[in-house]
């Protein structure tokens, strides 16, 4: 699926003293099978933006297009299982007596047969590395386990686009790595992933392209290297180090990911002839 936002603006509480213009003329495309990172400071409009992608919020002006078709003409229920949104702290919405039942809830709403529902539950729990949690109560899980169970609930709808809003907030580093590996794995199956994160280091690891928001506007969009090297002050640690060295050592290029950066920095040491 190709998902496109054209000149989208959003005003909260219009016509009241509390009016806030959260998005201003945002245009972007989520290409099939890519990981698009959405970055920006607190209150820059990241969450508001992604809630437009499945029309949970409707634009005050502008359009959302799914494969070129105005999303407003599509059935909402259809749109929402094709574009799956995992909220910030999604574990707050877990409700069923077992993890399995919780994950089964959405596919059951799609009117699938019981066999198909079971199969999808098994697959999604396996995808998030939570197969062993199926029979547990969601309330007795740790923060990381709950997070994975909640993501499995959205995956079970087999979305074409998966939107994750701050999926690693509060997760330990090892669990965070596993979740990032899951994102990379999903991309390989052709799903597009939109990753909203304030953690530039993790965006650097998985994003193909990056969209930076500032005050509700797109301040930069492009490949991770293009966006991060234009403003190294708002860049992951890898890019910050490399930018400082590029002036005197241009040969290191524009690495973004950790391993890439490590190779580039090692080549610098290699130049010394050791």
């Amino acid at each position, binding site marked *: 699926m190709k998902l496109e936002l054209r000149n989208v603006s959003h005003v909260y509480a219009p016509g009241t003293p509390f009016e806030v213009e959260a998005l201003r003329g945002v245009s972007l495309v989520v290409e099939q099978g890519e990981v698009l990172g959405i970055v920006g*400071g607190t209150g820059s409009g990241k969450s508001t933006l992604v809630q437009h992608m499945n029309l949970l919020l409707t634009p005050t002006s502008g359009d959302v297009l799914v494969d070129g078709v105005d999303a407003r003409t599509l059935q909402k229920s259809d749109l929402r299982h094709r574009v799956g949104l995992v909220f910030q702290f999604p574990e707050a919405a877990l409700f069923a007596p077992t993890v399995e039942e919780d994950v089964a809830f959405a596919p059951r709403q799609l009117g699938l047969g019981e066999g198909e529902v079971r199969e999808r539950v098994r697959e999604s729990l396996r995808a998030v590395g939570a197969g062993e949690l199926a029979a547990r109560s969601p309330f007795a899980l740790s923060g990381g386990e709950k997070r994975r169970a909640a993501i499995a609930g959205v995956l079970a709808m087999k979305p074409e686009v998966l939107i994750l809003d701050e999926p690693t907030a509060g997760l330990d580093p090892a669990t965070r790595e596993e979740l990032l590996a899951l994102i990379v794995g999903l991309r390989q199956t052709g799903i597009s992933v939109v990753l909203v994160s*304030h953690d530039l280091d993790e965006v650097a690891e998985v994003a193909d392209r990056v969209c930076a928001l500032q005050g509700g506007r797109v301040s930069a969009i492009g490949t991770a290297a293009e966006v991060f090297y234009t403003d190294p002050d708002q860049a992951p640690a890898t890019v910050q180090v490399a930018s400082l060295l590029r002036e005197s050592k241009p040969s290191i290029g524009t690495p973004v990911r950790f391993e890439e*950066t490590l190779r580039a920095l090692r080549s610098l040491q290699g130049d010394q002839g050791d």
Partner: protein
Amino acid sequence: MQNPGEGTHSGGSLAVSCQKVSFSYPGSTRPALSDVSFELQTGEYVGVVGPNGGGKSTLVRLLNGLLKPDSGRVLISGHDPATEPFEVRKHLGVLFQNPENGLVAPFVEDDVAFGLENLGVPREEMLGRVAGAIRAVGLAGYERREPDTLSGGEKQRVALAGLLAVEPGILVLDEPTSMLDATGRREVLEHLRALRSKKTVLHVTHHLEELTSADRILVLNGGELTADKTPERLLSDAELLRENRLMLPVLPRLALELGLPPAKLRTPEELAAALLAAAESGTRAR
């Protein structure tokens, strides 16, 4: 009105004491905490790290009396949270992980004032404290915003302001920066550093880099206290880090892989300078 936390600041007193504390959630086969013992002296800044499910949040809930230990004893400034929760909450304030759950009032300033109202602080004093706390977290101008219209990071700062306004002597912070961007995180951490030695702070986090200047770091894994060390010793113990699913942040990890001392290179500038210096001396040596 006297600061409710101040009564505990007499010389070298214990702010927090946990003695052989164990706790299991009902229906769970594995204890969430087993036999955990540690003490915080008044004025100490102590970090808590460890994997998800390690027992960090359970510990926080035992400290303020939301949970009661199955065995062992918790004392907060000499009071038992299991039997005197209201007394304990005058001394100890908690910032919980998910800011969404904590915001209750129609406007930001009311929310920040909520804890003070419960303590019966006079209105004049309350207004001053609320304004000060909102400024301290960098949200001046947000007083009349509705919490629903705030981003996750802004909500987290509102919750922190509410806690700071109460001025408890002991602050327990469960992931206080998990939703903040780099700038917000820096501001909140600076504010926390400014509280050092005035308050006792227990700071739960997944970001080891936030704890490099802590007095000690406790590691909770599988419900057990697996380490109680200074930041330098913990950061340089690769095996201990691995065993407890802890990971070094990007900069020290880069430094380590490049054969440079991770503890001394805390900023991109320092790491870049060290690499350039090494390249220079390498060229000269040739």
